[in-house]
């Protein structure tokens, strides 16, 4: 919906050709998927379990500050691994080809208050199909924020920096509410809808189990370390939430990312769908460790093009995808984490205010966006 369509220079044939080239990249990975990839995810899962076990073990003695620090750090990392590199990717079906019923999108459950199947619907289905389509993709602002100039401003949006901050702290609850489409479903007559009630119940059950584990059972097991363990688990959840919120904000919010209108996706071809994913996503650059801790969502563009390819292959895919961006003269939005987080937050702040008056003749891109 920006004033200048960054894909305007492409002909319809070029877009379809681009689609075919992307399909070829995908086929290559699928043909070469094998033992190494399977070994990778198994290794990551085993490492996560061991780390969580050891961290929880250390936290039994969390009344001693060094134990608290080590245990909390370990548990935070374990929770991040569970949600990002493991849970998110398995639930995308990235590892279904292994035919291992224990590592499968239909059986996996994660350390998160949103039950896996509900998240799969709102994330895999709605968000990934309708990426960045206003009104269809609720990830855009999670229904509580204004993320594009064309969205109508409302005084409620003045508070959006605060909503965003709270959402970051309690991100997993935000996601659960969002998967339930709580905002829409709390209206009087929808509340009674049996299907909604069943889903709400499932979320309630999941929350109860998670809370019981983190804030009752493990603290109790720690005996005299009850309170420090409680604080440790709270901290680990907070760290995990802040981290995943930051990573996810970088995926579609930074400046330079495009947002689309509902009518623009009518009768979309495969090539156009690919193009929308390319223009609607942004990457994070950084080290291997950084990619791992983001669950390879740092390769958001590649992930959106091929959501079901194993995450450990995104790095090699990224090289080829980037070459295509260059070939077709498109902007590959990427940058280091602090820069991308800052960019996303700046947008949140900027759009909390109504649009400024359009300015005349604005040469710089940033200004064009504001004027749009």
């Amino acid at each position, binding site marked *: 919906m920006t004033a200048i369509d960054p894909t305007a220079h492409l002909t319809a044939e070029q877009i379809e050709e681009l689609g075919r080239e992307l*399909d070829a990249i*995908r*086929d290559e990975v*699928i043909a070469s*998927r*094998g*033992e*190494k*990839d*399977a*070994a990778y995810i198994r290794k990551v899962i*085993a490492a996560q*379990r*061991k780390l969580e*076990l050891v961290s929880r073990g250390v936290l039994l003695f969390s009344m001693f500050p060094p134990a608290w620090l080590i245990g909390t750090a370990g548990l935070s990392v374990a929770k991040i691994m569970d949600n990002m590199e493991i849970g998110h990717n398995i639930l*995308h*079906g990235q590892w*279904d*080809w*292994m*035919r*291992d*019923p*224990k590592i*499968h*999108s*239909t059986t996996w*459950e*994660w*350390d*998160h208050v949103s039950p896996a199947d509900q998240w*799969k*619907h709102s994330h*895999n*289905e709605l968000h*990934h*199909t309708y990426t960045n389509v206003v009104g269809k993709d609720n990830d855009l602002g999670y229904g509580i924020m204004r993320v594009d100039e064309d969205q109508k401003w409302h005084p409620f949006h003045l508070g959006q920096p605060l909503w965003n901050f709270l959402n970051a702290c309690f991100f997993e609850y935000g996601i659960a509410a969002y998967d339930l489409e709580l905002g829409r479903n709390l209206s009087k007559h929808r509340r009674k809808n049996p299907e909604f009630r069943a889903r709400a119940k499932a979320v309630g059950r*999941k929350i109860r*189990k*998670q809370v*019981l*584990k983190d804030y009752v*059972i*493990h603290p109790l*097991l720690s005996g005299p370390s009850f309170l420090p363990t409680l604080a440790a688990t709270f901290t680990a959840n907070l760290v995990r939430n802040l981290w995943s919120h930051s990573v996810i904000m970088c995926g579609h919010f930074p400046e330079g990312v495009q947002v689309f209108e509902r009518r623009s996706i009518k009768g979309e071809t495969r090539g156009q*769908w690919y193009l929308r994913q390319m223009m609607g996503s942004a990457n994070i650059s950084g080290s291997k460790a950084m990619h791992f801790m983001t669950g390879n969502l740092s390769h958001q563009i590649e992930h959106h093009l091929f*959501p*079901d390819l194993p995450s450990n292959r995104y790095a090699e895919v990224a090289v080829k995808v980037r070459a295509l961006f260059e070939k077709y003269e498109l902007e590959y939005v990427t940058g280091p984490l602090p820069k991308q987080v800052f960019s996303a937050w700046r947008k949140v702040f900027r759009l909390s205010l109504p649009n400024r008056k359009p300015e005349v003749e604005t040469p710089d891109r940033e200004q064009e966006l504001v004027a749009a």
Partner: protein
Amino acid sequence: MTSATLRSRAWKLLEMVTTPLLPSDYLDLVSPLRAGADLRGRIEAVYPETGDAATIVIRPGRGWRGHRAGQYVRIGVDVDGVRLWRAYSLTSPARRQDGRVTITVKAIPDGKVSNHLVRRAKPGTLIQLDQATGDFVLPQATPAKVLYLTAGSGITPVMGMLRDTEFDDVVMVHCAPRPQDVIFRNELHDLVADKRLRLTEVHTDTDGMLDISRLGELVPDWAERETWACGPAGLLDAAEEHWRDHGVQERLHTERFRPSIVVAGDGGEVTFSSTGKTVDADGATPLLDVGEESGVLMPSGCRMGICFGCVTPLKAGAVRDLRTGEITEAEPGVLIQTCVSAAAGPCDIER
């Protein structure tokens, strides 16, 4: 409180500690073969038998309930990262001292699992196991005279029997292309030398196929013998006919290996087995559409292969991935994305 209820309460508590995982997810890390775990086995050794057959020694998990000679076991092996299940006869005697079991596998051309097991399997590898099953077994009452009639890898269940139970009068007729293709040949010849077995080897490359109607020339008293036969379908069909013609069919016990071979074609008859609907489908229409058009309730989401909201068990037959052209054949536990799969021949979808 009984100890059983106590244990189940303790387990419930443990589940609260490990949620959303299960305690077993952690225990599997350290002790995958423990009692109470999903049944698994560990490959402990692989011995070549012939150029294309090998015996795999497996230490089964504690949950293994044992087997009877002649039975088979289904094993799940990861080949190129993909778990594939196949059934193999157990070749070890039922009461082996060290608790291990063996299967003997012949690599068949293009056989993914058999080639992997014969040529690439390494000691230390974990595999998935089912309990042994099959009623190709010896009776409780000892028969006076026994005939084993086998061909190729059909010798494997019979070898399990031979090693398990000794009879006074045992004859074996075994067919293989050449002497060096006879699996267990040394062991068989040792038994012959010890006078515990009378053996006729038919080398089909030089002797031609065994003509069952002339079995009497090799084993004159065949009709008086309790017979166990295992080999290709042609041999078994002929044997069944021969025994029936002589009115002694109750003396013949046969074991058939994988009967159906899936032939991947283009389109075919699709059965939605839970709904009980059968329709014809072409090779280009997604099964999701085929189902919906015939009024079957099909789960779906993105309809373009990205959300995995449409995965459904493939019970039989084969489907083709419309994006890659890749063929997927039905096997236990195989799920397909109906929105990007079309019928590649007759198939059965659990919906």
